[in-house]
């Protein structure tokens, strides 16, 4: 069989964002792969040093389109830790509400993309139709469907009254039905399983070696979730399950993500039901005292870490971001070894890459 070098990217119908793979293919088998990143590197970490802390919120929201809120949340928590601010509980609840809504949005979007990449357009259309419910909720809350600009240093800038809260609860009921139906499809539909079972297997040892985080790690049996493990407020008062699977293949990742979406709906309901009264923000100083802070959050793709160093002025001295996609990217050469050409799209979809996050 002759050897062909198949380029996947930087432009390819499979990829949402530019990424470059050179796959050496013999017949239908991939024998080697070479990966290249950096096509959407925008130098955001450097740009952070030239802007004030407040301006950076606007900038860091745009690291990623889908996990925008969790990036600004983590950043604001770091800055608030440096400034020694104590946030009102209502602000923490509202931030968590948007985090969970974003998680549902991300997983629905991802499910549609996976379905499209295995030729299952119908599930793509259904998942993105249900995603519209989440986008409507987020738009009512913040004014933006995908990018919300909800965080300020010291809290959030949005609030809701009881009528609005009841509307959201109704929409969540509808959303829960739809997401549970999609979970049923993933669990029982045979052609989807035929394409995703046994593909891209990562064992627990692999996951530990590569420090994989997020749903990819949970699908291989590693029970980690920062919301629970770090006892972050307000999650410490909520009841929810962290779905874990041990198959480690793309189907396990699909199951974990859709189950997480279901759990997120339950969490949103609990957040709204236990929403405490009070202010939604505290006043933050313009100059942040000198120091270092490290914060981490459970983004839809896993653990996102922010390191912020302040020198006492109103510009941060350094902002360093470690996004979860980086850990998934490192596992790709392993996963792409000796797979069929058709499975490349499944593997790449399965790890839920957010290249904008990885490149910054």
């Amino acid at each position, binding site marked *: 069989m002759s050897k062909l070098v198949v380029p996947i990217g930087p432009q*390819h119908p499979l990829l949402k964002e530019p990424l470059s793979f050179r796959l050496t293919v013999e017949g239908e088998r991939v024998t080697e792969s070479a990966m290249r990143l950096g096509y959407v590197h925008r130098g955001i970490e450097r740009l952070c040093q030239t802007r004030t802390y407040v301006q950076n919120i606007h900038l860091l929201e745009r690291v990623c389109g889908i996990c925008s809120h969790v990036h600004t949340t983590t950043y604001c928590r770091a800055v608030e830790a440096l400034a020694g601010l104590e946030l009102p509980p209502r602000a923490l609840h509202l931030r968590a509400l948007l985090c969970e809504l974003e998680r549902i949005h991300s997983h629905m979007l991802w499910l549609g993309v996976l379905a499209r990449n295995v030729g299952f357009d*119908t599930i793509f*259309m*259904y998942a993105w139709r249900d995603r519209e419910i989440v986008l409507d909720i987020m738009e009512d809350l913040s004014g933006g469907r995908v990018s919300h600009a909800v965080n300020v240093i010291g809290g959030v800038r949005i609030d809701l009254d009881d009528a609005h809260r009841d509307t959201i609860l109704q929409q969540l009921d509808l959303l829960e039905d739809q997401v549970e139906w999609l979970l049923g499809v993933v669990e029982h539909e045979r*052609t989807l399983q035929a394409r995703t079972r046994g593909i891209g297997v990562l064992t627990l040892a692999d996951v530990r070696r590569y420090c994989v985080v997020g749903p990819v790690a949970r699908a291989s049996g590693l029970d980690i979730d920062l919301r629970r493990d770090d006892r972050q407020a307000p999650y410490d008062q909520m009841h929810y399950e962290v779905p874990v699977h041990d198959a480690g293949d793309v189907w396990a990742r699909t199951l974990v993500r859709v189950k997480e979406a279901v759990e997120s709906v339950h969490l949103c309901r609990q957040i709204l039901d236990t929403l405490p009264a009070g202010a939604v923000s505290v006043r933050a100083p313009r100059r942040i005292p000198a120091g270092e802070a490290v914060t981490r959050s459970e983004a839809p793709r896993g653990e996102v870490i922010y390191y912020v160093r302040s020198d006492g002025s109103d510009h941060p001295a350094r902002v360093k971001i470690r996004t979860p996609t980086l850990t998934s990217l490192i596992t790709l050469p392993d996963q792409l070894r000796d797979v069929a050409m*058709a499975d490349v799209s499944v593997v790449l979809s399965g790890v839920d890459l957010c290249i904008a996050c990885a490149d910054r």
Partner: protein
Amino acid sequence: MMALYRLLVFPGFGFLFVCAMLFDWIDRRVIARTQERVGPPWYQPLADFIKLLAKEDVRTEGVHEVAAAGLPIVSLASVLTAALYVPVGGVAAASYEGDLIVVLFLLSVPALAYFLAGWISPGVYSVIGGHRSLLQYFSYEVPFMMALASPAVLAGSWRIMSIVAYQGQATWLALIQPLGFLLAIVGLIGKLKRDPLDIPKAKSEVVGGPLTEYSGRKMAIWHLAMDMQTVVGIFLLVNLFLGESRFLEALPAFPVFGAKALAILLLLSMASALYARLRIDQLANLGWRVLAPLALLQVMATLWVGG
């Protein structure tokens, strides 16, 4: 004069062109409604065809120009020739003993032309798509041919019109040979490279497959050939499995034929909407381990009963 009318108007090129556009529209509309979308308006396939004719025909470096231009034309020509012998509502341009075999051979030509289109292109996606299309051809063609041979064996004739008339005496062969009917439908999905068997042109895997480098007029001819192949394939299945029926004799032949064709088109559209795409090795497995033995079973059962 009559021959010219049959060739060019009905059931020849003009009629087939209208049917190709109509069937493509119905297919896209049904799939869209299944996915809770609106779907394209009735003139969309025609608009797409005209748009493609007007687009720039990109010359790919390293491709034999005459071959690249000739392959879509050969595809279209073989489909149109096959259509001569497939009756529509009882009317065919020509009919003779053995025309079923001629039709089956002619309908194999587009698959080979499709493979060659990938083979002569220097692009990686085209070559891989070409490999896949040939592997797919070997997976579905044998069960498909056997499934279509069973009606001929039972009816005792290799003439399509005789098979149709035989069903008028007995009943629809879809009811007598349901296994054969099912295999013919699956084989047709593979032949037409429709989802879930659109493996050679899987957009997320090989971008456009063998036709990645095609555009403009040549692409318009390719699309027309594929749409017409859909029409001729469906008509063939209607004739062989849903032929004449005593119970529907009073009704006018043409609308009844149209209704049957639409029923099969609906089956194909639903199959496209409801399943994920297969992998090529899964199709090869399916073709040789499941479909071919079942087709053999069907043929043997027919021989045992009929002979």
